[in-house]
């Protein structure tokens, strides 16, 4: 017994010397995996869920269009109707065609044929709005679209 008592008396302190390293590793992990969105969202953007999905192309081959209600804190200035956001500006539906063409011309020629338009549309938006956007895209001969979603089963299934 005395042998054990002797050991117990001086408890070794847990070394915290490696703690900064661990935290730094976590930090670097988060810095590498998160993609920082380069434009601030002005509209609500709760994407729908889907399961049979493809992974989007690289970011430089995407043109993003956000659609949704204005954010609560912006409702005073932007009103409470559906809004389209292109880059960091609120736009009209007729701006979509010129915007897409302008974005296309910024891309290097070699990847222009692979550019996809990512429609990031809030799930409460009406289909008619999306149909109008698709029509605008057809008019400028951009046919590749992606309905951006989250992965998962959709919860509220009405019939």
């Amino acid at each position, binding site marked *: 017994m005395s042998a054990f008592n002797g050991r117990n008396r001086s408890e070794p302190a847990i070394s915290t010397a490696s703690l900064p390293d661990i935290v730094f590793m976590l930090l670097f992990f988060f810095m590498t995996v998160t993609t920082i969105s380069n434009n601030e969202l002005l509209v609500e953007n709760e994407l729908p869920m889907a399961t049979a*999905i493809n992974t989007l192309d690289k970011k430089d081959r995407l043109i993003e269009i956000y659609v949704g209600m204005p954010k609560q804190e912006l409702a005073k200035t932007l009103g409470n109707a559906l809004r389209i956001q292109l880059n960091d500006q609120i736009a009209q539906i007729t701006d979509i065609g010129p915007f897409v063409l302008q974005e296309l011309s910024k891309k290097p020629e070699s990847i222009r044929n692979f550019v996809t338009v990512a429609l990031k549309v809030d799930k409460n938006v009406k289909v008619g709005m999306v149909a109008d956007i698709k029509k605008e895209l057809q008019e400028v*001969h951009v046919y590749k679209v992606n*309905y951006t979603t989250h992965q998962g089963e959709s919860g509220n299934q009405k019939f």
Partner: protein
Amino acid sequence: MRRTRENPEVHAGSMADIAFLLLIFFLVTTTIETDKGLDRKLPQEDNQTSIVVNERNVFRISLNKYDQLLVEEKIMSTDQLKDQVIAFLDNGGEVGTDGTYCDYCKGSRNPELSDNPKEAIIVLNSDRNASYGMYVNIQDQLAAAYNTLRNREAQRLYGQDFDQMEDRYYAPESNASEKNILKERVETIRSLFPMNISEAELNVQSQNQNL
């Protein structure tokens, strides 16, 4: 003189706190963006040619403004839709117009349903006031139905799932010779079950979009 002799140690005790602060800052400011979605190709605008199709080869889905689903004149919930679409596509009723009989179809050969998956067309009509969430849900169910059938055929012909083949095909690390084989296989499977989804006409009854 005494000072220079022994180097003062840098105090590293607060390093962890600093790193934690940074970590928390990144956690708070970054929003993880989704990079998943349903890829679709819009029809060419000038493609206004009308084709004659047999009524049995058309599968009609309508979505009304209350987000209710009408499939072939029956009200249905979305979770039943996938099985219905599979039954329709995989039916393999009769010899098609190009004289080929769908020998890989495992359906019930119901005279009401499609002749051949190559001729089967799914027509999706949605009201302008239906919600986009529901619309994507339907698109997702349709894609899931096609994926199921394509996976089955890919397993039968090549012993591999279709989506795996597709992933390998699009992966940048696959080499050229592998890609060539995969390209042919992917195209074969796609031609067995081509995705023909038409969204010909959307209701234009309510134009009160306040934009």
